[in-house]
């Protein structure tokens, strides 16, 4: 995900006539699906000024008038209890019209925000979303009566099927400031009265979704189901990732790009500075996308063919887990383990995001409340959580060894995660708050919103990864050309060769790893390492330091003092564990 320069979204840029429509509502009410339905293909993700809270912005036309629709972070109340909620409240000041998205299956809790919004006297309409689900649950709501009581248009919608969305757009013209008045202390009473007057609930037997919901937080069944769900997600990522590489990315590169590169190589005289920079070294007289290390060969092959398919597959699986409502349940199940690491269950979310790319993982650390949690989670993320780009490259390197290659790498990282967490919990001052989280009902993800989110994440990957990879490959070439790698290899030879048992050239990979981990792993490929060396190098490259993009975010989030401590832990752990792993693997007879 990219990092945006914090700019307040300004109304001025496109002229004053553009209306700003704020989509506001509780978390998990289908706000993103409504957003996705209202706006076209052009959507951007932005950071709110001075924060890491992101929101999406898109365009909508109502009778020829352009409106800017802003998907405000979900909030339960305008009396904020977290940073994301504070942002939601601050963003209110920038809006012209509010669409308050309300979950029709949970009217009472949702009206709390509605009433607080009404008090601000903003032009507003209410979207009674999940209307179909409410009917299914035996909930009927008297829409005209509700509109009358609130004094604003109320439109039943079902964002997943698109029902009611046209009416919602049209209702924007009738947006009203409302006329309901009440004392703050009386709010819940007022809400209770409204609900009693407009809502009828017929008793229905629990649906399959509700039964499943209970099963997935059951103390015994829950963990079993969690393992199945995570294994299925892993298989999905592997299947889609491998499939895209094998049937799309590699054939495309081989059939279309290779002839061009070979022609370019000949045109450049099969050698020389420019040839080495653009095409790279020829391997047996041929262009090798994996090993040539030219900007146009390996520099494009790594991000587009080796990494992108897995990143796509990962964000697809993660999007399904997010939008179905499974993640908070996973948070509940792992809460106990996470407390042993000085974190609570929901810290699993930054870790999972980090598996995609450490940058959004690090950005999401803001949801953690205390310094202790942020320090521990940031350090664990940076050391033990490899990003998908790196995993994809490791998979390419170790693939031929199967489990004998993967298990030691990812097993070691997992054990480091647990061990370091337990240690840091002991030695980090501060408190770890308890988990408190809404468990939304299970819902089938709406594909429109899912794909939009996937696309936004991939755009982030393109913007972030491709330039860094190209610069990385450029730097590799410059370092070799100017003999820097040779010099450093000699300097660190004793350590690298004796402690880690790696060839001195591996120092080049460690150097480039500061910039981009996937390129660093790619640099191991021409070195012809043994299995043991590959395992040690993969673990050390994951752990010793985050890539520069992650480092910048962590530095901002932690401050220099904590970042320094964290970096010290990284270096000591990475090389300590690397050396130890080398000894253990040698002892086990792994060569």
């Amino acid at each position, binding site marked *: 995900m990219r990092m945006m320069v914090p700019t307040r979204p300004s109304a001025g840029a496109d002229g004053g006539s553009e209306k700003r429509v704020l989509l506001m509502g509780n978390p998990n009410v289908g706000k993103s699906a409504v957003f996705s339905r209202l706006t076209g293909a052009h959507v951007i993700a932005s950071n709110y000024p001075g924060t890491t809270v992101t929101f999406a912005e898109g365009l909508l036309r109502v009778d020829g008038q352009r409106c800017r629709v802003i998907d405000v972070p979900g909030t339960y109340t305008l009396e904020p209890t977290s940073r994301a909620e504070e942002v939601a409240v601050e963003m209110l000041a920038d809006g012209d019209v509010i669409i308050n998205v309300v979950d029709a299956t949970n009217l009472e809790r949702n009206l709390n925000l509605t009433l607080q919004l009404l008090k601000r006297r903003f032009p507003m309409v209410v979207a009674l979303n999940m209307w179909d689900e409410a009917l299914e649950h035996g909930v009927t709501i008297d829409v005209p009566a509700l509109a009358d009581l609130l004094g604003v248009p109320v439109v039943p919608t079902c964002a997943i099927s698109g029902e009611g969305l046209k009416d919602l757009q049209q209702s924007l013209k009738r947006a009203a400031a409302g006329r309901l008045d009440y004392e703050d202390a009386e709010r819940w009473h007022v809400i209770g009265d409204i609900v009693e007057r407009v809502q009828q609930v017929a008793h229905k037997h629990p649906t399959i979704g509700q039964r499943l919901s209970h099963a997935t937080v059951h103390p015994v069944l829950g963990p079993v189901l969690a393992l199945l769900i995570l294994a299925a997600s892993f298989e999905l990522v592997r299947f889609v990732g491998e499939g895209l590489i094998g049937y799309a990315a590699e054939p495309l590169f081989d059939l279309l790009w290779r002839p061009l590169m070979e022609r370019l190589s000949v045109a450049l005289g099969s050698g020389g500075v420019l040839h080495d920079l653009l095409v790279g070294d020829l391997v047996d007289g041929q262009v090798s996308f994996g090993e040539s290390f030219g900007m146009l060969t390996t520099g494009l092959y790594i991000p587009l063919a080796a990494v992108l398919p897995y990143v796509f597959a990962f964000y697809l699986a993660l999007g399904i887990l997010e939008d179905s409502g499974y993640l908070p349940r996973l*948070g509940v199940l792992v809460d106990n383990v996470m407390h042993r690491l000085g974190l609570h269950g929901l810290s699993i979310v930054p870790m999972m995001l980090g598996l995609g790319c450490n940058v959004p993982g690090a950005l999401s650390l803001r949801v953690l409340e205390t310094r202790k949690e942020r320090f521990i989670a940031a350090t664990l993320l940076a050391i033990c959580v490899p990003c998908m780009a790196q995993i994809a490259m490791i998979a390419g390197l170790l693939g031929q060894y199967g489990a004998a290659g993967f298990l030691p790498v990812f097993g070691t990282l997992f054990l480091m995660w647990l061990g370091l967490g337990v240690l840091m919990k002991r030695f980090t001052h501060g408190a770890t708050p308890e988990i408190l989280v809404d468990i939304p009902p299970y819902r089938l993800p709406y594909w429109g919103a899912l794909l939009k989110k996937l696309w936004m994440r991939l755009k982030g990957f393109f913007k972030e990864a491709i330039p860094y990879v190209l610069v990385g490959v450029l730097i590799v070439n410059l370092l070799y050309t100017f003999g820097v790698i040779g010099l450093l290899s000699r300097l660190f030879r004793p350590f690298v060769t004796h402690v880690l048992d790696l060839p001195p050239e591996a120092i080049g990979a460690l150097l480039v790893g500061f910039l981009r981990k996937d390129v660093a792993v790619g640099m191991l490929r021409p070195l012809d390492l043994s299995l043991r060396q590959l395992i040690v190098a993969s673990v050390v490259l994951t752990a010793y330091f985050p890539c520069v993009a992650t480092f910048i975010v962590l530095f901002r989030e932690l401050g220099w003092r904590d970042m320094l401590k964290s970096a010290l832990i990284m270096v000591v752990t990475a090389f300590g564990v690397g050396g130890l792993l080398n000894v253990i693997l040698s002892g086990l007879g792994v060569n």
Partner: protein
Amino acid sequence: MDGKEAMTNLAALPAGRTAVVVGFNGGRGMMRKLDALGLRPGKQVRVVSSQFMAGPITVLIDGRGVAMGRGIASRVQVRTMG
């Protein structure tokens, strides 16, 4: 409990038990968070599950799930209903 009402806290209830929230023993910040999630005096709650080793408990309020740590739950006073 032989149909008798009894005062206790949410953490002490076994899974499947229903109770009515009476009050909360704790700071204003936490109270506001619970309130926003629909947990406030007068509300009926049902315990769906509680994780082993003093792990979090999950309750249903108005048919909607809320999970909370055992410490928070122990400060929610409830009246059991038979």
